[in-house]
């Protein structure tokens, strides 16, 4: 057991999976000698060499496309896209091929690859370094879309993603990389992909969040308990797709009220699918309209105005109180 931040926890997952399985390779820009711009792959190049930790040329489509070829051959590439904002240069590979090869070949081939990307704002970075774009991947059949919220679940989910027979898009929030440390066990841990966790229990309200927004949901639940005497369920989605509708619906059937928090813009975002799932499964239990706390539907406004766009604690509390008062 060691106290690790998100970067070190992810590094541990990669290290142990590479030690366990020679088919696991890492590929991306600056992932080798430099250890990645966020140091997630630190030291792995030294341990496993340049054939397994590949400093690739600067070309996202070929990083993912070559990863597809490696995966078709039976290897398990873990590709790093340096920032999720640059993934549109490989989006066609992800949509056209990563997601579809199992279907296209009717099960003869599959693509057991992981594509890791830092995402999210609040880190005073320029355009394309601050966006939340999980909805694009969550919408594509054939992909799994995972977003951990802390070091321990990040480590366990990355191990699961590497061992998953299907392609996993794995988002890591930049704001969490060096945030809180957690106890992470030395022995390998896994978490099931497609399963959410209820991280706080209460009967009055359901707060649904993931990634960096989970911290806000937890804080809001604490404040609501302290100041309003309200007890909230807090759900950490962990996997965006396939969505764990069962856990969400069971909670809202109990509470009758739901607030969804995400950093991605509102329209057609994950919140819309979550809300529709609640309508499908818990309509008769609802006591109030489902609330969404999200970024505005504008392109990245520049980090001088970012605080007004990314949800904060006050936004979550206001939405929760409005929902409770309905």
């Amino acid at each position, binding site marked *: 057991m060691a106290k690790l931040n998100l970067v070190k926890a992810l590094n541990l997952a990669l290290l142990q999976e590479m030690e366990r399985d020679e088919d696991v390779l890492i590929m991306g820009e600056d992932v080798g000698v430099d250890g990645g711009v966020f140091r997630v792959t630190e030291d792995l190049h030294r341990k496993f060499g340049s054939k397994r930790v590949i400093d690739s040329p600067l*070309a996202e*489509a070929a990083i993912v496309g070559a990863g597809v070829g490696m995966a*078709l051959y039976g290897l398990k590439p873990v590709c790093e896209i340096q920032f999720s904002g640059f993934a549109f240069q490989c989006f066609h590979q992800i949509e056209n091929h990563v997601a579809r090869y199992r*279907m296209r*070949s009717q099960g003869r081939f599959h693509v057991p690859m992981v594509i890791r990307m830092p995402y999210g704002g609040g880190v005073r970075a320029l355009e394309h370094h601050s966006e939340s774009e999980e909805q694009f991947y969550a919408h594509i059949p054939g992909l799994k879309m995972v977003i951990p919220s802390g070091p321990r679940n990040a480590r366990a989910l990355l191990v699961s993603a590497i061992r998953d027979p299907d392609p996993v898009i794995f988002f890591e929030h930049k704001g969490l990389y060096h945030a809180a440390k957690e106890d992470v066990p030395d022995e390998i841990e896994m978490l099931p992909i*497609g399963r959410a966790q209820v991280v706080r229990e209460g009967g009055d309200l359901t707060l649904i969040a993931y990634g960096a927004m989970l911290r806000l949901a937890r804080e809001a639940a604490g404040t609501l308990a302290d100041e309003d005497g309200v007890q909230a369920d807090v759900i950490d989605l962990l996997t965006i797709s396939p969505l764990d*509708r069962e856990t969400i619906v069971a909670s809202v059937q109990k509470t009758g009220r739901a607030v969804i928090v995400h950093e991605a813009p509102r329209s057609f975002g994950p919140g819309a699918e979550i809300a529709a799932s609640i309508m499908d499964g818990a309509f008769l239990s609802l006591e109030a309209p489902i609330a969404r706390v999200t970024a505005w539907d504008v392109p990245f406004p520049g980090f001088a105005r970012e605080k007004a766009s990314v949800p904060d604690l006050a936004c979550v509390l206001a939405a929760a109180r409005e929902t409770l008062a309905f």
Partner: protein
Amino acid sequence: MPRTLLEPRFQVEYLSILDSDGTLDTSLEPDIPAEDLKRLYRGMLLGRRLDERMIRLQRQGRIGTFAPIKGQEASQVGAVFTLRPGDWTVPSFRETAAMLWRGWPIEKLLLLFAGYLEGGQPAPGQNDLPITIPVATQLPHAVGLAYAAQYRGDDAVVMAFCGDGATSEGDFHEALNFAGVWHVPVVFVVQNNQWAISVPLKKQTHSRTLAQKALAYGLPGLQVDGNDVLAVSVACRDAVDRARAGDGPTLIECVTYRLGVHTTADDPTKYRSAEEVEAWERKDPLTRFGAYLEKKNLLEDGLAEALDAEIAAAVQRFEARGAANPLTMFEHAYGERPPHLEAQRAAMAERLSSGGPAAATDGAEPPSPPMRGQRATRR
């Protein structure tokens, strides 16, 4: 010295052995065993005859849109002829003759173009990827396969196909660059058939050749007469051998011509002249290779009829297929069906059992839509 000339100065070779007049350069003539020469001709002719049959099937509404290969038989068969069974092929969508050579059954190809994904499923152990439709996007896959083969210590070679239009795509350049940097066993075969739908080569690139694009990435690039199966096989043999020996990737530009339509939804009279097509018909790869074999007394009597019978039998097997069971669409989205797909599958099963709309998916065929921006025509 403010300006100096960098060495080496790059040059591109052009290889032709058997030209369109049937003139043979005996100094370059490869020593191919008689049985292989007969197999090559058979493979090319099978490609041609199936192509013609598929056009009729498409016109009759029995298969959907497809991309004919007529004129490109030598480029395809001459290339895959040099591979071992355990090697890999990575096709685009106009490689029917190459796919037949590699062992794809005719009825599977028909199934594919009739809209059944079952037709794109390679047999167990068959190292051939199914067709890729988005242009050039298959090329990075070939590089990754080659990297994996090298990583595992296997001696497999990967052969990837694309067309002249693909050389304008970013994925083409990224793939060549990766292949060069990684020095992996891949051979890129560019079938320069002069036309990317309606756009001629001169509007596609200002380069003198497509082969020279390889040179920028540190790969050998060679241009061959793509209608000369001897030249194609000599060039590919050399490239495949070098790849297998660890000497890295090669690009081979086969200069050929699409004698037919881009796809069955295309009308080429709109953008090119009959004279141009006729000029290329005189360079037909089958005519010159047939004459070459005739001189060697290797032409088999009744070959076309035998191939037609083989095709007819495959068409019969294809026509005897069962209706497409809609429920199977849920089988290969993921390795294990997640709960929402389980629920959607159950919903469809319910609709099917109650005779709902999903039950009618194998009824009257709608007309084939055009591929990649091509307008539909009725011809």
